[in-house]
């Protein structure tokens, strides 16, 4: 997945200006940057929820900018949300099952194809159980998602996004509000999915140690532009990055 020269402004605020990123297939790519750097806006552009003024979004060479979010999702691009948007008035189980993609029952005409629905359901259920088990929510499966804690909602959001079998999964702050034990579990799960199922990950995250440890490539954004692209090790040595986070050193005119 590539984003080429993306620009988007809201009113007078330039949220993203000329940003390009290249998500390497089968790897974990991190996108970091100070608050207001345009990371989430870029995420929303990549998933079709915001339409860029300029630029292209390519998935395996296919242009996807301007397409509806559901079309992009069907092209294999999944995402989670910063605020962990679970459907509060559905159970945990129903939330996960909602993720099953290309479900014949999603269509109104699927009503007349009970066999296809049953068949699909049987296959999806196993996968849903597995995913719930992976994120440790099996015991809560019949609970309304609205009764979950913030961290549990994050995990549910993740499991639901995985249910759609994305080739590329965009994670918006997956570790925020998740306790250290669960965080470790989630890190392992992401690494496992990457190494065993070759899922491509792009994640926005403020927890730098976690990012450094798990990602293969890091982009740093500040004020709408990409200011660093390279290995995790080089991030903290890069003067632009340090400036963006801490402000330019006094007396430094760059």
């Amino acid at each position, binding site marked *: 997945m590539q984003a080429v020269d993306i620009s988007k402004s809201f009113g007078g605020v330039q949220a993203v200006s000329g940003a390009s990123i290249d998500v390497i297939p089968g790897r974990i790519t991190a996108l970091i940057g100070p608050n207001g750097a345009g990371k989430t806006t870029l995420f929303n552009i990549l*998933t*079709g*929820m915001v339409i860029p003024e300029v630029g292209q979004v390519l998935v395996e060479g296919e242009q996807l900018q301007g397409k*509806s*979010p*559901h079309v992009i*999702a*069907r092209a294999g691009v*999944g*995402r989670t*949300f910063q605020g962990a*948007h*679970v*459907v*509060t*008035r*559905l159970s945990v189980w*129903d*939330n996960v*099952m*909602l*993720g*099953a*993609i*290309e*479900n014949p*029952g*999603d*269509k*109104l005409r*699927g*009503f007349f194809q009970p066999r296809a*629905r049953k068949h699909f359901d049987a296959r999806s259920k196993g996968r849903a159980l597995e995913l719930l088990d992976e994120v440790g929510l099996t015991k809560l499966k019949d609970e*309304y998602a*609205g*009764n979950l804690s913030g961290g549990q909602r994050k995990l549910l959001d993740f499991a*639901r*996004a995985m*249910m*759609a079998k994305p080739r590329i999964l965009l994670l918006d702050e997956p570790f925020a509000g998740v306790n250290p034990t669960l965080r470790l579990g989630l890190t392992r799960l992401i690494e496992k999915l990457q190494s065993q199922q070759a899922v491509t990950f792009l994640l926005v995250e403020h927890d730098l140690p976690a990012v450094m440890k798990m990602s293969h490539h890091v982009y740093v954004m500040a004020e709408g532009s990409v200011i660093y692209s390279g290995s995790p090790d080089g991030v903290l040595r890069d003067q632009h990055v340090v400036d963006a986070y801490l402000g330019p050193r006094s007396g430094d005119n760059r």
Partner: protein
Amino acid sequence: MADLLVPGFWIFVLINAGIYTIFALGLQLQYGVAGLMNFGAVALMGLSAYTMVISFITWNVNFLVACLLGLIAAALGGVFLGLMARRLRGDYFAIVTIAFSETFRYVARNASNFTGGDQGSLAIPSDSVTASYVAPWNDFVASISTQIESLTGFTLDRDSVMLIAIWSVAIILLIVIARLEKTPWAQVLRASREGDLVPQSLGKNVGLMRTQVLVLGSVLGGIAGIFFALQFSFIQPNNFEPLATFFAWMIILLGGATRVVGVPVGALIFGFIFAGTRFFDFPPFSWFDSADKAYLRLIIVGAILIAIVLWRPQGILGRRKEMILE
């Protein structure tokens, strides 16, 4: 109270409840599943009834085809609401639906050459002196009645046959919609009550589904509209006041908006209150004369609505958490 023991009264209550069951079922699908606040549902009922009546009387269309045209008109009304729903949510959508419903009624009142205006279907231009559309239906009912008589020996009057016809259709529709509400399609719509982002990010075409649910709900309203027109043999614009929509809202809120079974339960209670109040002759009802009692029932319906919303938002049979969780 003696009047309450007359079978005719109960048949009337049940016929009304049956028509309202079908009507409110459309609303239950739209609100209880998809969270759409349609306050103009009665317009679809009217659109279908008027289309059926006008195409039969004015255009001399075959009766069954006229009924079909009525349902198509309601479906198109649903498509229009679907277009509105693409842009508007919640309260804003609700306001537009009321405007839609009232626009329909005002057109029906004022396009006299076409609709008969305030005099209703009797004044629709026609070859005969008074326009009527119920002859084919009455013939059908009579033939059913004869068949039942030859089979069982019982003689059924028109209202009894009507009762059986309406409730047969209502029960079939209840079963079909209950099944539909168990599909993943309905589940996506339930998710969409809390916003489009999640279902869209999972590859669901929420906009299309919302239009589909509005069309289905509208067609249900349309079926109710045709039964209404056939039962009362006469329609006029004021049959389709917003009040009727709110009766349907009371029914689904009373029965429990999240469940299909709540609809007939709510409709039966409503039908009894609506038709029964004028026969109640115990206090406080005995303090009023019969003309006042007609208004009294509106007060009762209003009071029930307020009480449900305050103390039992899930209704009699609904799932409380599904109504109140954030």
